[in-house]
Protein backbone atom coordinates (compact mmCIF):
# COMPACT_ATOMS: atom_id res chain seq x y z
CA UNK A 1 0.00 0.00 0.00
CA UNK A 2 2.81 2.34 0.95
CA UNK A 3 4.61 1.69 -2.32
CA UNK A 4 1.45 2.50 -4.19
CA UNK A 5 1.05 5.81 -2.36
CA UNK A 6 4.59 6.74 -3.14
CA UNK A 7 6.29 9.92 -2.06
CA UNK A 8 3.01 11.78 -1.63
CA UNK A 9 1.70 9.15 0.79
CA UNK A 10 4.91 9.23 2.75
CA UNK A 11 4.78 13.02 2.98
CA UNK A 12 1.18 12.90 4.21
CA UNK A 13 2.05 10.35 6.87
CA UNK A 14 4.94 12.48 8.04
CA UNK A 15 2.78 15.59 8.01
CA UNK A 16 -0.03 13.94 9.97
CA UNK A 17 2.40 12.87 12.66
CA UNK A 18 3.20 16.50 13.25
CA UNK A 19 -0.45 17.30 13.92
CA UNK A 20 -1.88 17.40 17.46
CA UNK A 21 -2.10 13.84 18.82
CA UNK A 22 -5.89 13.82 18.94
CA UNK A 23 -6.10 14.68 15.27
CA UNK A 24 -3.06 12.90 13.86
CA UNK A 25 -4.67 9.55 13.14
CA UNK A 26 -7.84 11.05 11.75
CA UNK A 27 -6.01 13.51 9.51
CA UNK A 28 -3.73 10.82 8.15
CA UNK A 29 -6.63 8.58 7.20
CA UNK A 30 -8.66 11.45 5.81
CA UNK A 31 -5.80 12.80 3.71
CA UNK A 32 -4.80 9.38 2.44
CA UNK A 33 -8.41 8.82 1.37
CA UNK A 34 -8.36 12.12 -0.49
CA UNK A 35 -4.99 11.20 -1.96
CA UNK A 36 -6.48 8.01 -3.37
CA UNK A 37 -8.86 10.11 -5.46
CA UNK A 38 -6.08 12.17 -6.97
CA UNK A 39 -4.84 11.24 -10.41
CA UNK A 40 -1.40 12.22 -11.56
CA UNK A 41 1.87 12.52 -9.73
CA UNK A 42 1.88 16.29 -9.70
CA UNK A 43 -1.63 16.55 -8.24
CA UNK A 44 -0.75 14.02 -5.56
CA UNK A 45 2.42 15.88 -4.65
CA UNK A 46 0.53 19.15 -4.50
CA UNK A 47 -1.94 17.59 -2.08
CA UNK A 48 0.88 16.20 0.04
CA UNK A 49 2.72 19.51 0.20
CA UNK A 50 -0.58 21.21 1.05
CA UNK A 51 -1.14 18.75 3.87
CA UNK A 52 2.31 19.59 5.25
CA UNK A 53 1.29 23.21 5.32
CA UNK A 54 -2.13 22.37 6.75
CA UNK A 55 -0.47 20.45 9.58
CA UNK A 56 1.54 23.47 10.49
CA UNK A 57 -1.55 25.71 10.52
CA UNK A 58 -3.65 23.20 12.44
CA UNK A 59 -0.94 22.63 15.05
CA UNK A 60 -0.49 26.35 15.47
CA UNK A 61 -4.23 27.01 15.88
CA UNK A 62 -4.71 24.01 18.18
CA UNK A 63 -1.82 25.12 20.34
CA UNK A 64 -3.09 28.69 20.50
CA UNK A 65 -6.63 27.55 21.35
CA UNK A 66 -5.41 25.24 24.08
CA UNK A 67 -3.23 27.93 25.59
CA UNK A 68 -6.07 30.44 25.50
CA UNK A 69 -8.42 28.00 27.20
CA UNK A 70 -6.07 26.97 29.98
CA UNK A 71 -3.89 29.98 30.59
CA UNK A 72 -6.29 31.60 33.01
CA UNK A 73 -6.32 28.55 35.26
CA UNK A 74 -2.89 26.96 35.08
CA UNK A 75 -0.57 29.78 34.22
CA UNK A 76 2.59 29.72 32.17
CA UNK A 77 3.48 26.06 32.84
CA UNK A 78 0.74 24.96 30.47
CA UNK A 79 2.11 27.20 27.76
CA UNK A 80 5.43 25.42 27.96
CA UNK A 81 3.74 22.04 27.76
CA UNK A 82 1.89 22.98 24.61
CA UNK A 83 4.84 24.74 23.09
CA UNK A 84 6.80 21.52 22.81
CA UNK A 85 4.88 20.06 19.88
CA UNK A 86 5.53 23.26 18.00
CA UNK A 87 9.24 22.91 18.71
CA UNK A 88 9.19 19.32 17.53
CA UNK A 89 7.44 20.53 14.42
CA UNK A 90 10.46 22.65 13.65
CA UNK A 91 12.43 19.64 12.49
CA UNK A 92 9.59 18.55 10.20
CA UNK A 93 9.29 22.05 8.90
CA UNK A 94 12.99 22.02 8.21
CA UNK A 95 12.57 18.76 6.35
CA UNK A 96 9.76 20.26 4.30
CA UNK A 97 11.85 23.29 3.47
CA UNK A 98 14.75 21.07 2.51
CA UNK A 99 12.46 18.98 0.33
CA UNK A 100 11.19 22.08 -1.42
CA UNK A 101 14.72 23.35 -1.87
CA UNK A 102 15.76 19.98 -3.21
CA UNK A 103 12.86 20.03 -5.64
CA UNK A 104 13.98 23.42 -6.88
CA UNK A 105 17.53 22.17 -7.29
CA UNK A 106 16.31 19.19 -9.28
CA UNK A 107 14.21 21.41 -11.53
CA UNK A 108 17.05 23.87 -12.09
CA UNK A 109 19.46 21.03 -12.75
CA UNK A 110 17.02 19.53 -15.22
CA UNK A 111 16.70 22.82 -17.07
CA UNK A 112 20.44 23.47 -17.00
CA UNK A 113 21.47 20.07 -18.30
CA UNK A 114 18.72 19.67 -20.85
CA UNK A 115 17.12 16.70 -19.09
CA UNK A 116 13.85 18.55 -19.14
CA UNK A 117 13.90 18.87 -22.90
CA UNK A 118 11.82 15.75 -23.61
CA UNK A 119 9.30 16.92 -21.01
CA UNK A 120 9.17 20.40 -22.47
CA UNK A 121 8.76 19.02 -25.95
CA UNK A 122 5.65 17.23 -24.73
CA UNK A 123 4.26 20.21 -22.86
CA UNK A 124 5.09 22.80 -25.48
CA UNK A 125 4.31 21.84 -29.05
CA UNK A 126 7.07 22.48 -31.55
CA UNK A 127 6.93 25.75 -33.38
CA UNK A 128 5.82 25.22 -36.94
CA UNK A 129 7.03 27.85 -39.33
CA UNK A 130 4.61 28.39 -42.14
CA UNK A 131 6.08 30.54 -44.87
CA UNK A 132 3.61 33.21 -45.83
CA UNK A 133 3.34 34.07 -49.48
CA UNK A 134 4.67 37.46 -50.37
CA UNK A 135 1.98 40.01 -51.01
CA UNK A 136 1.54 40.71 -54.63
CA UNK A 137 3.26 43.88 -55.58
CA UNK A 138 2.51 45.66 -58.74
CA UNK A 139 5.76 47.35 -59.31
CA UNK A 140 6.35 48.87 -62.63
CA UNK A 141 9.96 49.52 -63.39
CA UNK A 142 10.70 53.12 -64.15
CA UNK A 143 10.88 53.86 -67.87
CA UNK A 144 14.31 53.72 -69.25
CA UNK A 145 15.64 57.06 -70.39
CA UNK A 146 15.39 57.45 -74.09
CA UNK A 147 18.76 57.86 -75.74
CA UNK A 148 19.30 61.34 -76.95
CA UNK A 149 21.47 60.41 -79.84
CA UNK A 150 21.44 62.89 -82.65
CA UNK A 151 22.90 62.42 -86.04
CA UNK A 152 25.72 64.93 -86.25
CA UNK A 153 26.32 66.01 -89.75
CA UNK A 154 29.78 67.08 -90.52
CA UNK A 155 29.56 70.56 -91.89
CA UNK A 156 32.33 71.44 -94.26
CA UNK A 157 32.83 74.90 -95.55
CA UNK A 158 33.11 74.84 -99.21
CA UNK A 159 35.70 77.43 -99.92
CA UNK A 160 37.02 78.08 -103.40
CA UNK A 161 40.52 76.79 -103.82
CA UNK A 162 42.93 78.67 -105.99
CA UNK A 163 44.27 76.41 -108.58
CA UNK A 164 47.76 76.79 -109.86
CA UNK A 165 48.43 74.48 -112.74
CA UNK A 166 51.76 72.74 -112.55
CA UNK A 167 54.33 73.71 -115.18
CA UNK A 168 54.06 71.70 -118.30
CA UNK A 169 56.83 69.28 -118.77
CA UNK A 170 58.34 68.66 -122.04
CA UNK A 171 56.76 65.98 -124.17
CA UNK A 172 53.65 66.06 -122.22
CA UNK A 173 50.72 68.07 -122.96
CA UNK A 174 49.22 69.86 -120.21
CA UNK A 175 46.14 67.98 -119.16
CA UNK A 176 43.36 70.04 -117.86
CA UNK A 177 42.71 69.31 -114.26
CA UNK A 178 39.32 69.89 -112.90
CA UNK A 179 39.40 71.79 -109.70
CA UNK A 180 38.28 69.80 -106.61
CA UNK A 181 36.10 71.58 -104.25
CA UNK A 182 36.32 70.38 -100.68
CA UNK A 183 37.03 66.87 -99.46
CA UNK A 184 35.38 64.04 -101.20
CA UNK A 185 35.11 61.67 -98.18
CA UNK A 186 31.53 60.56 -97.75
CA UNK A 187 29.91 61.41 -94.40
CA UNK A 188 27.46 58.88 -93.17
CA UNK A 189 24.81 60.43 -90.87
CA UNK A 190 23.46 56.96 -89.97
CA UNK A 191 26.38 56.15 -87.59
CA UNK A 192 26.24 58.59 -84.68
CA UNK A 193 29.25 58.86 -82.38
CA UNK A 194 29.13 56.51 -79.42
CA UNK A 195 28.12 58.17 -76.10
CA UNK A 196 29.16 56.43 -72.89
CA UNK A 197 26.46 55.95 -70.29
CA UNK A 198 27.75 57.88 -67.31
CA UNK A 199 26.26 57.67 -63.87
CA UNK A 200 27.36 60.15 -61.29
CA UNK A 201 28.73 59.15 -57.92
CA UNK A 202 27.74 60.15 -54.42
CA UNK A 203 27.74 58.95 -50.84
CA UNK A 204 27.58 55.18 -50.87
CA UNK A 205 27.10 52.31 -48.49
CA UNK A 206 28.64 52.83 -45.06
CA UNK A 207 28.86 56.58 -45.47
CA UNK A 208 28.88 58.32 -42.08
CA UNK A 209 25.63 59.76 -40.79
CA UNK A 210 25.13 63.50 -40.82
CA UNK A 211 23.99 63.51 -37.19
CA UNK A 212 27.43 62.36 -36.07
CA UNK A 213 29.02 65.47 -37.56
CA UNK A 214 26.40 67.99 -36.52
CA UNK A 215 28.44 70.64 -34.67
CA UNK A 216 27.39 70.72 -31.03
CA UNK A 217 27.19 74.48 -30.80
CA UNK A 218 25.13 74.69 -33.99
CA UNK A 219 22.81 72.03 -32.68
CA UNK A 220 22.46 73.87 -29.40
CA UNK A 221 21.65 77.09 -31.20
CA UNK A 222 19.29 75.32 -33.58
CA UNK A 223 21.27 76.38 -36.66
CA UNK A 224 20.42 74.56 -39.87
CA UNK A 225 21.74 74.71 -43.37
CA UNK A 226 22.80 72.89 -46.51
CA UNK A 227 26.38 73.00 -47.77
CA UNK A 228 27.51 71.87 -51.20
CA UNK A 229 30.79 69.99 -51.22
CA UNK A 230 32.93 68.98 -54.15
CA UNK A 231 34.94 65.81 -53.84
CA UNK A 232 37.28 64.00 -56.17
CA UNK A 233 36.97 60.25 -55.86
CA UNK A 234 38.87 57.36 -57.42
CA UNK A 235 37.44 54.11 -58.69
CA UNK A 236 37.31 52.66 -55.19
CA UNK A 237 35.42 55.54 -53.63
CA UNK A 238 38.42 57.09 -51.93
CA UNK A 239 39.20 60.78 -51.91
CA UNK A 240 41.98 61.76 -54.21
CA UNK A 241 42.01 65.40 -53.11
CA UNK A 242 40.82 67.53 -50.26
CA UNK A 243 37.09 68.29 -50.47
CA UNK A 244 36.07 71.86 -51.05
CA UNK A 245 32.99 73.81 -50.13
CA UNK A 246 31.52 75.11 -53.34
CA UNK A 247 28.44 76.61 -51.74
CA UNK A 248 28.39 77.60 -48.10
CA UNK A 249 25.53 76.73 -45.80
CA UNK A 250 25.74 80.21 -44.35
CA UNK A 251 27.15 79.03 -41.08
CA UNK A 252 30.87 78.47 -40.59
CA UNK A 253 30.45 75.67 -38.09
CA UNK A 254 28.07 73.79 -40.39
CA UNK A 255 30.55 74.18 -43.27
CA UNK A 256 33.24 72.82 -40.99
CA UNK A 257 31.02 69.87 -40.08
CA UNK A 258 30.32 69.23 -43.76
CA UNK A 259 34.05 69.22 -44.51
CA UNK A 260 34.69 66.73 -41.70
CA UNK A 261 31.88 64.53 -42.92
CA UNK A 262 33.20 64.65 -46.49
CA UNK A 263 36.66 63.64 -45.29
CA UNK A 264 35.35 60.92 -43.02
CA UNK A 265 33.40 59.42 -45.89
CA UNK A 266 36.57 58.58 -47.86
CA UNK A 267 36.35 54.98 -48.97
CA UNK A 268 32.56 55.02 -48.74
CA UNK A 269 31.87 57.12 -51.81
CA UNK A 270 30.13 55.63 -54.76
CA UNK A 271 32.38 56.26 -57.74
CA UNK A 272 31.10 57.58 -61.00
CA UNK A 273 30.55 54.81 -63.52
CA UNK A 274 30.81 54.83 -67.25
CA UNK A 275 29.00 51.95 -68.84
CA UNK A 276 29.02 50.31 -65.43
CA UNK A 277 32.74 50.67 -64.96
CA UNK A 278 33.91 52.87 -62.04
CA UNK A 279 36.09 55.77 -63.01
CA UNK A 280 37.80 58.57 -61.16
CA UNK A 281 35.82 61.77 -61.16
CA UNK A 282 34.96 64.89 -59.25
CA UNK A 283 31.41 65.73 -58.38
CA UNK A 284 29.40 67.79 -56.00
CA UNK A 285 26.83 66.78 -53.50
CA UNK A 286 24.82 68.54 -50.82
CA UNK A 287 25.07 67.94 -47.08
CA UNK A 288 22.08 69.12 -45.08
CA UNK A 289 22.05 69.74 -41.34
CA UNK A 290 18.55 69.85 -39.89
CA UNK A 291 17.49 69.78 -36.27
CA UNK A 292 15.02 67.01 -35.60
CA UNK A 293 11.94 67.51 -33.49
CA UNK A 294 13.30 65.17 -30.83
CA UNK A 295 16.35 67.39 -30.34
CA UNK A 296 18.82 65.72 -32.70
Amino acid at each position, binding site marked *: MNKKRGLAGWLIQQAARGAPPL*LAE*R*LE*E*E*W*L*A*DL*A*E*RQGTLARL*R*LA*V*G*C*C*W*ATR*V*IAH*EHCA*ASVAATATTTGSKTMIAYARPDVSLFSRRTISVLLILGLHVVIIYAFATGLARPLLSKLIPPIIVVPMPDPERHWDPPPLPQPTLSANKLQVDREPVDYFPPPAREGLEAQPVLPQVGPTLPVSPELPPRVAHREGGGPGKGFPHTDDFYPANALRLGQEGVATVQVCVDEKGRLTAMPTITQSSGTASLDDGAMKLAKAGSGHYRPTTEDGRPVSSCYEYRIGFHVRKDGR
Partner: protein
Amino acid sequence: MGKQERDVRISLQTLRVLEAFLENPLNELAGADVQKRSGIASGTLYPILLRLESAGWFVSRWETVDPASVGRPRRRLYRLTPGGLTRASEVFASFGRGVLA
Protein backbone atom coordinates in the same frame (compact mmCIF):
# COMPACT_ATOMS: atom_id res chain seq x y z
CA MET B 1 -23.34 18.29 18.30
CA GLY B 2 -25.58 20.27 20.50
CA LYS B 3 -23.02 22.90 21.25
CA GLN B 4 -23.25 26.60 20.59
CA GLU B 5 -21.72 27.74 17.31
CA ARG B 6 -18.78 30.06 17.76
CA ASP B 7 -17.71 32.88 15.52
CA VAL B 8 -15.25 32.06 12.82
CA ARG B 9 -12.90 34.41 11.06
CA ILE B 10 -14.49 34.79 7.65
CA SER B 11 -12.00 34.99 4.82
CA LEU B 12 -12.57 34.70 1.11
CA GLN B 13 -11.47 31.07 1.24
CA THR B 14 -13.91 30.38 4.07
CA LEU B 15 -16.69 31.89 1.99
CA ARG B 16 -15.78 29.62 -0.90
CA VAL B 17 -15.92 26.56 1.36
CA LEU B 18 -19.30 27.61 2.71
CA GLU B 19 -20.54 28.26 -0.79
CA ALA B 20 -19.59 24.71 -1.78
CA PHE B 21 -21.75 23.37 1.03
CA LEU B 22 -24.61 25.80 0.45
CA GLU B 23 -25.16 24.50 -3.07
CA ASN B 24 -26.95 21.62 -1.40
CA PRO B 25 -26.85 21.97 2.40
CA LEU B 26 -27.97 18.41 2.98
CA ASN B 27 -25.07 16.92 1.04
CA GLU B 28 -22.11 15.44 2.79
CA LEU B 29 -18.83 16.34 1.17
CA ALA B 30 -15.34 14.96 1.57
CA GLY B 31 -12.33 17.23 1.51
CA ALA B 32 -11.56 16.29 -2.09
CA ASP B 33 -15.12 17.19 -3.11
CA VAL B 34 -14.90 20.57 -1.44
CA GLN B 35 -11.59 21.20 -3.10
CA LYS B 36 -13.02 20.44 -6.53
CA ARG B 37 -15.94 22.79 -5.98
CA SER B 38 -14.09 25.63 -4.30
CA GLY B 39 -10.70 25.38 -6.00
CA ILE B 40 -8.89 26.02 -2.75
CA ALA B 41 -5.48 24.46 -2.13
CA SER B 42 -5.37 21.63 0.36
CA GLY B 43 -3.05 23.56 2.67
CA THR B 44 -5.80 26.13 3.16
CA LEU B 45 -8.84 23.87 2.91
CA TYR B 46 -8.25 21.40 5.74
CA PRO B 47 -7.56 24.01 8.43
CA ILE B 48 -10.77 25.77 7.40
CA LEU B 49 -12.76 22.54 7.63
CA LEU B 50 -11.36 21.81 11.08
CA ARG B 51 -11.92 25.40 12.16
CA LEU B 52 -15.56 25.34 11.08
CA GLU B 53 -16.05 21.94 12.66
CA SER B 54 -14.58 22.99 15.96
CA ALA B 55 -16.78 26.10 15.85
CA GLY B 56 -19.85 23.92 15.45
CA TRP B 57 -20.73 24.92 11.91
CA PHE B 58 -19.89 21.48 10.51
CA VAL B 59 -20.13 17.94 11.74
CA SER B 60 -18.09 15.12 10.26
CA ARG B 61 -18.19 11.37 10.22
CA TRP B 62 -16.41 8.47 8.57
CA GLU B 63 -17.88 7.05 5.44
CA THR B 64 -19.68 3.78 6.16
CA VAL B 65 -18.07 1.63 3.50
CA ASP B 66 -15.75 -1.31 3.62
CA PRO B 67 -12.38 -0.16 2.28
CA ALA B 68 -11.57 -3.65 1.09
CA SER B 69 -14.75 -3.93 -0.97
CA VAL B 70 -14.60 -0.47 -2.52
CA GLY B 71 -10.84 -0.61 -2.99
CA ARG B 72 -10.07 2.69 -1.35
CA PRO B 73 -9.79 4.15 2.15
CA ARG B 74 -12.92 5.45 3.80
CA ARG B 75 -13.43 9.16 3.50
CA ARG B 76 -14.22 11.78 6.10
CA LEU B 77 -17.53 13.45 5.24
CA TYR B 78 -18.51 16.94 6.35
CA ARG B 79 -22.00 18.37 6.59
CA LEU B 80 -23.43 21.71 7.63
CA THR B 81 -25.20 21.71 10.99
CA PRO B 82 -28.53 23.54 11.22
CA GLY B 83 -26.84 26.23 13.25
CA GLY B 84 -23.98 26.35 10.77
CA LEU B 85 -26.43 26.69 7.92
CA THR B 86 -28.06 29.62 9.67
CA ARG B 87 -24.72 31.29 10.36
CA ALA B 88 -23.48 30.69 6.84
CA SER B 89 -26.66 32.17 5.40
CA GLU B 90 -26.26 35.20 7.63
CA VAL B 91 -22.70 35.64 6.50
CA PHE B 92 -23.66 35.53 2.86
CA ALA B 93 -26.57 37.86 3.49
CA SER B 94 -24.25 40.40 5.11
CA PHE B 95 -21.53 40.09 2.47
CA GLY B 96 -23.73 39.55 -0.53
CA ARG B 97 -23.27 36.79 -3.04
CA GLY B 98 -21.57 39.18 -5.41
CA VAL B 99 -18.26 38.91 -3.60
CA LEU B 100 -17.66 35.46 -5.03
CA ALA B 101 -18.61 36.30 -8.56
